[in-house]
């Protein structure tokens, strides 16, 4: 599996996700600087977490207009899977690969804690290793994770089974307390129409090794390691 991790000024989870990818696939990903306008042949592109460009203007807004993103969008349109984690999810909505927008958390505070997520679909390269309906635990660390979209988009996402993960409590039940940011329909992660682009606020790379307290995130990278597009 040939993966690339896009590195922006202010990215801070690029190395963590590189470790998780190498652990799963045995091959280190290519680290691509945001000023590179050309991408090699790839099976996976990862937009990592962090605070690209200091979250200036809106989180993800500047990164979405950086030179490398045109190449990422072109690759995504050719079917190359793209995974956006946290700030990467914000970049994906800003560049239009995913619908909606991530607004400031409803509680106005940065939230940094483990959350429970229900796996809502296994119909994607990212989630096929999970069991539908199961509850997994991953950390969140964000100030702008409050997913917003108009009702037409929400209805489409729900109708097409494109909500990949939803915030729940440890028992798998939805509640106000289980949602860390006020996100609509308790959405934690969404898929593109083609199901080849996933954006999620929680960090699978931060719990991808049992020595670090959990490995629910590893399932995603193990599934992605098997990827081989043409």
């Amino acid at each position, binding site marked *: 599996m040939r993966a690339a991790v896009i590195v922006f000024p202010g990215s801070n989870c690029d190395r963590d996700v590189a470790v998780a990818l190498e652990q799963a696939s045995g091959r280190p990903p290519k680290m691509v600087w945001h000023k590179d306008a050309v991408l090699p042949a790839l099976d996976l592109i990862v937009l990592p977490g962090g605070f690209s460009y200091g979250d200036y*203007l*809106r989180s993800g*807004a500047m990164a979405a*207009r950086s030179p490398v993103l045109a190449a990422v969008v072109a690759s995504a349109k050719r079917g190359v899977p793209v995974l956006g984690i946290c700030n990467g999810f914000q970049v994906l*909505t*800003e560049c239009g690969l995913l619908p*909606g*927008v991530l*607004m*400031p*958390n*409803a*509680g*106005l505070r940065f939230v940094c804690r483990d959350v429970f997520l229900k796996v809502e679909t296994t119909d994607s390269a990212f989630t096929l290793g999970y069991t539908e309906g199961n509850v997994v635990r991953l950390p969140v660390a964000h100030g702008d994770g409050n997913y*917003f*979209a*108009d009702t037409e988009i929400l209805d489409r996402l729900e109708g097409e089974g494109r909500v990949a993960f939803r915030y729940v409590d440890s028992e798998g039940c939805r509640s106000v307390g289980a949602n860390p940011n*006020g996100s609509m329909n308790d959405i934690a992660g969404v898929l593109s129409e083609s199901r080849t682009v996933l954006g999620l606020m929680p960090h699978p790379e931060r719990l991808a090794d049992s020595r670090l307290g959990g490995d629910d995130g590893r399932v995603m990278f193990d599934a992605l390691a098997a990827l081989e597009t043409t």
Partner: protein
Amino acid sequence: MKARIHVTLKIGVLDPQGKAIGHALGAMGFDGVGEVRQGKVIDIELAETNPDKVRTAVDDMCRKLLANTVIESYEIEIDR
């Protein structure tokens, strides 16, 4: 020429920062404060001197970068 752009959240989009400001104003004793909405002001200097061309260019900038039109609306003021 100079352009000033006001970016605000669209009506119907919850503005938690505006709400917090409203609560704070009420707590400070300012009576009769209704809904508060927070936005941004962006000032841009442009080499172009034709106001119509400036407006067209700035409108393009707003749609492509300065505002996220999923949740934000914008107003453009040209020079003074």
